[in-house]
């Protein structure tokens, strides 16, 4: 395997979640002739591992953010080469995220937004207690992923209203609807006709990436 040593160093640096080490590994890999797209793909794969380690309590949110900051810095450093090849660093898709109206719990949703952002999505996080029409507005404006969260059984039913509204607007087929939160199950996801149920932030992110074939 070409650049085996560099690949390992990039992986180790990203999982260490230390920005200077990530930058150093990127510089060394680039100096050794590793293509920019390969560097970014290696870091992206390692980022998924960081997400799993966060989920299992081995890493914490600041670690995830440091790793993401390191990756962002790498993309800036390699920008010229990536732009020339037009094969990396692009936004994968736009996603609107929010906790549905009447529900003020947003920690899980915020972590999911962060994970999606780290995975290259352009995230429009509307926060919590989000009026249902705003989800639809964002989708009409171009978001192709719509992530809704609820922590309460009283509020989770609103997710179906958003799906119905997307249908009324004629854009349901253009949007991947993601649902999550403590009372949400795969059965509920199926029942209301959503596309993705995420048991965790990293599972949601992985499933969203799968939709794009990333």
């Amino acid at each position, binding site marked *: 395997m070409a650049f085996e040593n560099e690949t390992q160093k990039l992986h180790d640096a990203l999982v260490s979640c230390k920005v200077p080490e990530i930058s150093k590994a990127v510089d060394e890999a680039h100096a050794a002739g590793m293509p920019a797209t390969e560097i970014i793909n290696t870091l992206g794969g390692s980022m998924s591992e960081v997400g799993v380690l966060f989920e299992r309590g081995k890493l914490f949110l600041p670690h995830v953010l440091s790793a993401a900051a390191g990756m962002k810095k790498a993309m800036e450093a390699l920008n010229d080469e990536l732009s020339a090849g037009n094969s990396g660093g692009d936004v994968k898709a736009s996603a609107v995220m929010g906790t549905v109206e009447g529900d003020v719990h947003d920690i899980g949703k*915020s972590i999911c937004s962060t994970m999606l952002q780290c995975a290259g999505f352009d995230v429009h*996080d509307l926060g919590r207690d989000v009026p249902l029409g705003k989800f639809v507005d964002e989708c009409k404006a171009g978001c192709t992923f719509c992530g809704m969260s609820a922590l309460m059984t009283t509020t989770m039913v609103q997710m179906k209203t958003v799906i119905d509204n997307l249908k009324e607007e004629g854009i349901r087929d253009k949007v991947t609807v993601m649902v999550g939160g403590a009372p949400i199950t795969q*059965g509920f996801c199926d029942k209301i006709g959503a596309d993705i149920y995420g048991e965790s932030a990293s599972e949601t992110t992985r499933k969203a990436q799968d939709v794009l074939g990333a």
Partner: protein
Amino acid sequence: MTEYYTRMGDGRRVTMTKEQVMTDIQAGTADAADMAGIPALDANDIEHMCEIVIDQSRVVGVEPGHEVVMTYDIGQLDFTGDNGNSGNGVDMGRLEAALLHERALGADTFELSHSDYSIKPVKPVISMEMQAMEEIQSEIIAPYFYGAMPNMGLYYAPDGPYGNPADLMREFKIDESMASSEAAADHLARDIEFVTTRLQAAGSDGFNFDTTGSAGDADFVGTLNGVRILREQCPEAYINVGAAGESVMGIHGMMEFDGEIAAGLYPHQQCKLIAKAGANVFGAVCNTNTSRSLAWNLGRAVTFIKKAVEDSPIPVHVDMGMGVGGIPMFETPPLDAVARCNKAMVEIAKVDGV
């Protein structure tokens, strides 16, 4: 091959063979052991749990003489609340709810609570809560707490004065995010002191801190700082600290209590810090995965809780509500599943209470 009725983590009834149940228990216990770095259940425990899961009686239970203490959270809201907090929607006074739990439902302890069930909103109505506590204490016999969630999310924008750490982090403002968490934790500790010491003055037996750490490690540390103050000021208080999950979520990542980083602590580690803060009882939690079977969830949950019971310097009451302790995440948890999880927690994890 014989198939047995059992459940999924979302409550659906499924059939599984004994071999499938054993395989799922083994996978569940292995997952917990790997996550927390603790021993998996041994062969005897796994066999015992399997027998409990595949028992075809509708209800199972422990042998007479092996009963444990039942501590109830959420106060009267299990009657009066709507389905947002799994209540029955039956409006009644808080005295009536307390006496019903004591005299009709066999509660060993019960609690008074505010309809929001969070500490912060109690401050403006503290006199009303003190009066209710005094009145109910004159009628009730069982230990009667005040209960609320620390719910540190209420201290972040837009509900509170501090920036939302998750929002700040998405802008890569990590230092600001951490500072916001620290300020909110200090504020929470002050509010805990304000609320709890007044309720003790009104005759409360103590305080139940429910879902501690729901907003992450800063919530956990802020609560323990508040618990320490309560213990110093009210040595007589009965203090129950219940966790929010099997692991303390690292939103800040570096916050410490008594020199130990809180993020990433599992129940067998949480119990030691909670005891150091001055709590009398630790409410251990393990969340249910709705996509896995009851056997997998129970194997996993009992593994975490058993180790916590072994290592805890104080009694451990396992949280066994909807979606925790192996119980399916379904608003009307099936009776058969609840009874099985209860029996396994008592007989295998050897909890002091539920």
